[in-house]
């Protein structure tokens, strides 16, 4: 009895925290089903009207496609160059290593808003207009630190005698990399790519400075829309985005089983 009360108290505190964590997400999902012209929670009635009304707002679909494109481009390039750089950092000794490691890690310390301003000024000077490329370049800077952290971690306990064995058996360095090294560090590389994708897909701060009227990513579109309107369209767009993320995670989990990576990483 004496022991049960604190335990009950402890569990209810945890439950409260979990409720707090999920509340805003649940609220967005449920209020997208309302029949009213305004956002209300709990929703009044049930309808999918706000999803069908998205047909009249093709700009959201355009932004969604652009965001996916940019996120894929970012994830691909950031993972590729980040993995190469990680190989150099972990396996080679060279002058200026510390400086380079610090440089590549520093975007985590620089507020994105300052980086966004700096990038906008630089782009306008070199005449690079708002484009998927301009967005990808900015997002690469934001995501390479994550990629390198994860890949370096998977490279550090790597048993190099396996590579040596492959080389002694006559495999070239490319073959060794793609058939031995890459499969072994796979989980780190994939986790890095997922982080890069999500970070790019989610970025508002840097994109806000780079976008133009034609090139608008989804977070920026949602942000600017809700400055002026407060109708349930936003909740249906957001719900689609949430469901998309959840579906993506499920697919990744099923196909690659990297759920393990995320839960064991901590």
């Amino acid at each position, binding site marked *: 009895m004496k022991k049960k009360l604190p335990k009950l108290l*402890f*569990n209810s505190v*945890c439950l409260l*925290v*979990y409720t707090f*964590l*999920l*509340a*805003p*997400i649940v*609220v*967005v999902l449920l209020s997208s089903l309302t029949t009213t012209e305004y*956002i*209300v*929670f709990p929703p009044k009635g049930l309808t999918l009207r706000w999803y069908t009304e998205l047909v009249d707002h093709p700009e959201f679909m355009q932004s969604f496609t652009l965001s996916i494109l940019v996120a894929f481009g970012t994830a691909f390039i950031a993972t590729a*160059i980040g993995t*190469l*750089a990680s*190989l*150099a950092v972990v396996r*080679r000794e060279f002058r200026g290593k510390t400086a*380079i490691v610090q440089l590549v890690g*520093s*975007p985590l*310390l*620089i*507020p994105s*808003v*300052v*980086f966004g*301003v*700096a*990038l*906008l*000024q*630089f782009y306008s*000077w070199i005449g690079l207009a708002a484009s998927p490329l301009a967005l990808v*370049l900015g997002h690469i*800077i934001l995501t*390479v630190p994550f990629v390198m952290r994860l890949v370096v971690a998977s490279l550090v306990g790597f048993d190099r005698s396996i590579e040596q064995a492959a080389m002694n058996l006559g495999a070239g360095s490319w073959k060794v990399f793609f058939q031995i090294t890459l499969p072994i560090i796979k989980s780190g590389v994939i986790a890095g790519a997922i982080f890069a994708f*999500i970070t790019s*897909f*989610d970025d*508002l701060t840097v994109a*806000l*400075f780079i976008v133009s009227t034609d090139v608008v990513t989804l*977070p920026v579109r*949602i*942000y600017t829309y*809700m400055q002026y309107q407060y109708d349930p369209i936003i*909740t249906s767009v*957001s719900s689609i*985005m*949430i469901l998309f*993320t959840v579906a993506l*995670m499920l697919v990744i989990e099923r196909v690659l089983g990297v*759920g393990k990576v*995320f*839960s064991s990483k*901590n």
Partner: protein
Amino acid sequence: MQVGIGTENDLLLKQKKKNLKRKRIDTWLLLLPTLAIFIFFFLLPLFFLFITSFKTFDPSSGIGNEWTLQNYIKFMSDPFYLGVVWRTVKIALITTLITIFISYPVAFQISKSRGRARNYFTLLVLSPLLISMVIRCYGWVILLSNNGVVNNTLLSLGWIDEPLTLLYTELSVVIGMVHVLFPYMVLSIMGSLEKIDPSVIRASQNLGASSFRTFFSIMLPLTLPGVFAGSVMVFSLSVSSFVTPAILGGPQVKVMSYLTYEQVAVMLNWPYGGAIGFLLILIASITIIAYSKILARSEKGVAIQ
């Protein structure tokens, strides 16, 4: 015979030198793409913005030709701007404290659970990280607005007579920040909870200490490094965050990142926006350095105990 071995050695040496040289070129080839992008699209832009922050403001083009320190002096001598600095730091401090208090029980619970339950709880804690920050903040707008869920509940319970102003206040910004930054703290505390040797806990219990005593004199001190590390992360992310204060605070609750955005995007005053941005970087770095000094000291302290 002798000569033969000599040339063989020479050959080997040459081969080794050649390999070394090739390796060095390889190293830089591996680094080249990352370095090139970082120099051109990170260092150079920040460097140019730094230079801009020492220029005068020109209403027609944004950036004037004269050099000046006025941007920095103006910011640091105006009570309004100093108030914004104070608000930024205050919000970050409160966010960090609340995050510690609500993360600790959750980290504790997860590190105690095993198997499948553990995976589910971890996923639950990390899931907010996967969902767009804009959407999460938007959820809080729905919850906290004048006719939002919180106000409606309180009204229907009869606890209040008219809706409270919750949205676009420091409170709403803090709530949003805690929600966004919570997972980082949980992960950090879990890391140090896991490092605790279970035999230490058992020893304490065997010696007759109550669970409370065990927690406060064994667990808590041993997890302080994790709490500190999490705090640095949460504090610095909170000081520099833009999305949460922009959506949940807006122009009513100006913090430094919002001020930077406003000066550049609305006032088109690039030099001043740049100066505020670099002061923000300065504040964030100072706290990180100060914290890591404390962290280093506290780790020593724990080791001695």
